[in-house]
């Protein structure tokens, strides 16, 4: 039993069990939709977690990449007559390119300076999305056509549940494998001490850039799914608050914990839905819960609980 619990892919196994069993208790299409949203944000959070939890680099602009993915699947079919799957892949490729070009200079910055640089990057994209109304529809946003592959179009919350869940699982397994690879060890070394990592022969700049690009692709794919799910997209998808939300998901769930990203995303996607019953007190409750989780479970929800279980 111990051996199974400590296995590298145990979190993936546990999460697949949840994904398969969840439909037994989901009462309506609305709940499938919320669950799909959770998987979408969890995917973006897993990517950001690779950057923050393992390489130790903060990004306050990752929603910018979500925006690229989202607008790629909105603009591609509408203005360029691209099939939606090609726009989807193209968006991910574009995000990787942008991350590569932007990451090279700004990843030299450290700590809060990197935070403000990434924040600026995300803001620039959000401003561009809301001002280039010819392509993006401006602040009101634009409609997104249905996702279709080989003439089959995807419709219905249940279909999206399985697509987003499968994508999330693939992303999670890739991340878990990456963490245990030599690359993952190099990343953790950078997190613990850049100087020590450099002394041991880790090419720090290359590693940081690589994980930045990977995390951008995760965010872009999540952004595309988000656009398909909503059927409509506004510049808010790449806004500052969205970036902050992604960071909060990673930290609440637990820095460096892939399963934690799912829990963090679930918390921040579902809380506002549940708290609407509190009407005006919704934001107060949300703020209080975020503060309480961070004060009482400082390592994040999943790592703290895992430690408690390990001791029991």
């Amino acid at each position, binding site marked *: 039993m111990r051996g199974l619990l400590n296995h590298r892919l145990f979190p993936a196994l546990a999460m697949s069990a949840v994904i398969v069993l969840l439909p037994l208790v989901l009462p309506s299409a609305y709940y499938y939709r919320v669950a799909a949203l959770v998987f979408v944000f969890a995917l973006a959070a897993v990517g950001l977690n690779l950057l*923050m939890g393992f390489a130790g680099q*903060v990004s306050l602009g990752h929603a910018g990449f979500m925006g690229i993915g989202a607008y790629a699947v909105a603009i591609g079919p509408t203005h360029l007559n691209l099939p939606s799957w090609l726009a989807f892949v193209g968006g991910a490729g574009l995000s990787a390119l942008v991350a590569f070009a932007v990451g090279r*200079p*700004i990843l*030299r*910055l*450290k*700590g*809060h*300076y990197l*935070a*403000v*640089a990434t*924040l*600026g*990057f995300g*803001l*620039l994209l959000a*401003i*561009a999305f809301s*001002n280039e109304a010819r392509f993006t529809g401006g602040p009101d946003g634009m409609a997104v056509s249905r996702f279709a592959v080989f003439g089959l179009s995807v419709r219905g919350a249940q279909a999206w549940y399985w697509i987003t869940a499968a994508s999330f699982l693939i992303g999670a397994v890739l991340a878990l494998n990456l963490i245990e690879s030599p690359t993952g060890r190099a990343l953790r070394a950078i997190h613990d*001490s850049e*100087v*020590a990592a450099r002394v041991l022969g880790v090419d720090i700049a290359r590693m940081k850039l690589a994980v930045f690009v990977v995390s951008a692709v995760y965010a872009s794919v999540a952004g595309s799914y988000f656009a398909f799910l909503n059927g409509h997209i506004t510049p808010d998808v790449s806004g*500052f*608050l969205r970036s*902050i939300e992604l*960071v*909060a998901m990673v*930290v*609440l769930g637990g*820095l460096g914990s892939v399963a934690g990203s799912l829990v963090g995303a679930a918390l921040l996607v579902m809380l506002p839905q549940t708290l609407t019953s509190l009407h*005006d*007190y*919704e*934001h*107060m*409750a*949300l*703020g*209080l*819960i*975020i*503060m309480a989780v*961070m*004060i009482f479970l*400082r390592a994040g929800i999943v790592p703290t609980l895992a430690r408690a279980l390990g001791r029991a």
Partner: protein
Amino acid sequence: MTELLQFTFSGLTVGAVYALVALGFTLIYNSCDVINFAQGEFVMLGGMTTVFLGLAGVPLPLAACFAVVLTVAVGLALHRFAIEPARGSGAVVLIIITIGASIFLRGAAQVIFDKRFHTLPPFVGGDAIRIAGAAILPQSLVVLAGAVIILVLLWAFIERTLIGKAMVATAANEIAARLVGIDTRAAVGLSFAIAAAIGAVAGILITPIALTSYDVGTVLALKGFAAAMLGGIGSAVGAVIGGLVLGLLEAFAAGYVSSQYKDAVAFLVILIVLLAMPRGLFGRAPVERV
């Protein structure tokens, strides 16, 4: 020329507010290494409390004083009930706590006040002053004068009083400060109180020009943070210069380039400055311990 003067003045006015917010970031960062994203909510609380007490019939000067006191109380509560219990957590965890606090305060303001925009009457006569063709609102001068007074008072407090020196010592080295008998917890709490007071005053000064509502804090926190980083985090001079530069950049970008892209231009310049000077304009290079 007239245009240039006009843009410079509006830039300096907004920049003075950014500078005060950035100064709040700097004070708290220096005392306990926390980037306090609820700093913008202090500005909102100052403006909104004054407006609503005014509506309730309280004379404005008294309302303003009470707003500052209330905001200071909120700042102290933030330190006591949210930051203090999480001592020793990582930087990102503390940032998320302050973000939680800012969501909470925004939510509270939405319940206690309302969701509409509000303004205050200008503190002195309303007619614009004409200088070389540029129209300058008297309230702009009030904002600038207010900012200068706050800076002088803060400088005098930190450099000339024993309590101020205790704060500097705590910022420099908390353990050493505790060893020489300084109550470092109180010193950190004091930095929250002062940051809150500065934010509240900034909020009251700018409301007659820029309006206020329950959610103005987010943008101000973002701009203040950017200004503090532009100046170099931890440097008070840097925070003030960073704020003024950011305000001027926005005003010139809005005037000469496009008002829609004013934030874009400002952040582009910040990115370029940081790439050339990775520690901001006035930041010191850290000594890296291995």
